[in-house]
């Protein structure tokens, strides 16, 4: 089943085209990586899926419906986004997990949260801690959990391990893979690290200067002849 379809979309900011005439489809249940150099438009592209950014031209369909006609609020509830930089609001960590539930009037079994915390290698008492006393890695894991409170159908992850050390990166990566295996979720993961891409999604889209240079199985990036730009990126 087609979940997202982008048809010839462009994003123009201050008269520069950040995304250029890009087309792309995502099927339900896929786990896709978007990779590319910094400034290639990965975040901009990712933000289009939950309408945090807008297209200047073209069309996007979500479950067959034009994205322009969806209500951004209900869309975002289904299409969760985790930002690159960990940021917690409020005083205590738990406020971040309560917030999405309270604004949508959702009740969630405690076990769901405890189970998630365990998978994230976090103790339950972290919930009572002050946000500012948490390490960057802990903060980012709470951010991830905050988005998962709504049990999203789609998970958009924007370089969520870029500020984490290798240990935390490994925990988060394994968690994401578990979530993908355990739940009926579609994942789009942005990364600038090809090794991470290899450990994560099966399909990888290579973005450069707002255009798709390659859209193929992740494994294929490690075999055969690649386009020159991609080779250059890998060599770095």
């Amino acid at each position, binding site marked *: 089943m087609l979940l997202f379809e982008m048809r010839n979309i462009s994003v123009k900011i201050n008269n520069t085209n950040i995304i250029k005439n890009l087309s792309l489809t995502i099927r339900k249940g896929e786990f896709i990586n978007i990779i590319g150099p910094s400034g290639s438009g990965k975040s901009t592209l990712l933000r289009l899926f939950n*309408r945090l950014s807008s297209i200047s031209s073209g069309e996007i369909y979500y479950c067959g419906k034009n994205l322009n006609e969806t209500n951004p*609020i209900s869309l*975002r*509830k289904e299409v969760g986004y985790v*930002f690159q930089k960990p*940021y917690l609001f409020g005083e205590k960590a738990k406020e971040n997990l309560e917030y999405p539930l309270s604004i949508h009037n959702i009740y969630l079994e405690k076990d769901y949260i405890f189970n998630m915390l365990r998978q994230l290698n976090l103790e339950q008492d972290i919930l009572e801690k002050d946000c500012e006393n948490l390490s960057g890695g802990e903060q980012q894991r709470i951010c991830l959990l905050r*988005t998962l409170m709504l049990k999203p159908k789609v998970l958009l992850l924007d370089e969520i391990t870029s500020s984490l050390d290798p240990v935390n990166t490994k925990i988060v990566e394994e968690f994401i893979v578990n979530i993908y295996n355990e739940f009926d979720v579609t994942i789009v993961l942005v990364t600038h690290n090809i090794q991470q891409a290899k450990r994560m999604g099966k399909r990888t889209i290579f973005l450069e200067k707002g255009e798709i240079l390659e859209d193929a199985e992740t494994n294929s990036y490690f075999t055969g002849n690649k386009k020159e730009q991609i080779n250059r990126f890998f060599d770095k």
Partner: protein
Amino acid sequence: MSITTLLMTSILIFVALGISKSQKIHLEKEMVIGIIRAIVQLSLIGLVLTYIFEIDNRIVTTVILMLMVYNASRVATKRGKNKEELKKVAFFSIFAGTAIPMSVLIITGAIEYVPSQVIPVSGMVIGNAMVALGLTFKQLHDNFTSNFYEIEIKLALGATERVASIHLIRDSIRTGMQPIVDSMQTLGIVQLPGMMTGLILAGQSPVLAIKYQIMVTFMLLSAVAITTSIGAFATYRKYFTEEKQVKRI
């Protein structure tokens, strides 16, 4: 007080000018301009008020009040962006913040709708509402600038614009109301407000002056609360796009 007496008190100006000159503060020129402007403006308004009080016409009074609200709304939005939009909101919120308490005062019989009463009392209300609204607008703007990321995270969780920014809206209302709440607490201890001083100097009993001052305090409090909350709730949407994104400012 006679004109001669008033002229004699002008010696105080020379004290200030002398200090400025001898201490090289370089404010003499601005002081002189300020003094001349104060004298001219106050004399003119004195003439105008005398005339308006004499004709005692409700329509004229209402027009004057609207002009005062209009001027105040321009001052309150002096520094904001999107001025035209903001001015309309400012006009409406100061208008409501003035009209509601003034209506209560008139209905309860505390004051009458005659120019000699409504114009000075409204002047106080409008002036305070204007300052409070200016503070609220500025705080709202600062809050949206410095909390961009947090608002965006909340929107990404499916919060409405209002839910995502409610704490910032409330904070800006609080900021606008804070000075009046603070000054209420020191009223009579640190300062005798200008109106009360005026009444006492004009020979009224302190008891009457206090009654009026208490009334004015009630009035200012409600005026400021009404103006800042209408102002903040009517403007916060300008920081969002139609697609429920927070604007970069």
